[in-house]
């Protein structure tokens, strides 16, 4: 069974034009020997054409989704800035309170 998968893959690589010269010649010999192998190569070619036609299509990302992603980023950026501001403000207040209570250690 493993040999059959290897053959399947080799013929696929041949159809995709990915084999080295020597391997390609060897595969052509296999194709010449058996009708089944030739049909397999043709099937691969058909599938690869199908894929290349599909590849030429470029579906566009839905506008609503793109806008949603961008909105999320703006909200995240705003929250990040707000957090930085509030924590900075909090630190300043605590510093001032500590100073007011005279709890700041004296410098030597």
């Amino acid at each position, binding site marked *: 069974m493993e040999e059959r998968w290897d053959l*399947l893959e080799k013929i696929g690589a041949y159809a995709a034009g990915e084999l080295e010269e020597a391997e390609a010649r060897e595969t052509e010999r296999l194709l010449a020997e058996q009708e089944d192998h030739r049909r*397999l190569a043709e099937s691969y070619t058909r*599938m690869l054409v199908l894929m*290349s036609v*599909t590849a030429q299509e470029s579906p566009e990302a839905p506008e609503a989704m793109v806008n949603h*992603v961008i909105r*999320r980023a703006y909200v995240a950026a705003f929250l990040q800035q707000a957090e930085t501001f509030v924590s900075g403000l909090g630190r300043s207040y605590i510093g001032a309170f500590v100073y007011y209570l005279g709890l700041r250690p004296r410098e030597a």
Partner: protein
Amino acid sequence: MSLRERELVLQAARGDAGAFAHLVREHSNLVYRVALRMLGSSEAQDACQEVWVKVWRSINSFRGDSTFSTWLYRVTINTCLNARERVLRRESLELREEMPHLPEPSGSEFDPEATTLSRERKDELVSALQLVRPEHRAALVLRHLEGLSYREISDILEVPEGTAKGWVSRGRAAMLVLLARGDADGEAGGKTGGKP
């Protein structure tokens, strides 16, 4: 990576949502296209949003060793691989006595010259793709649908080039078996018999 893109990335890394919005607008089609091909239409949008949330959170870890699009491909593929998905392991694909063959398409249904393809054939292709083992699917999408080189694929998937080639090769074979069986809409087999 262009100077402008590098600048946008740096600004976004500093928390500039405007710069990030530019990056989203420029690359949203890439992310959506890959997610669509990796997961199908029902899960693609959720995956895209997850990708951009990850990008926003981790853009300051982007070192610029690769292009931004390579990094983005990596984040997208990893997100898709982690997403809930129907997995058909290659081992469960049964290779029957006869080699798999695709029937010749009728002229009206398939016209490569005009690059048109019937909706049915496209759906069949996408459904079959969903059943290919995830890492093989990722490599297959990057190679045959995104048209990337094996070097780029190995960069994105963070595996050696030989491994990337092997995954594409196995993915291709599995796709052909699934398409030939025409059962891409359902879980196939469950029987062993494929190559481990």
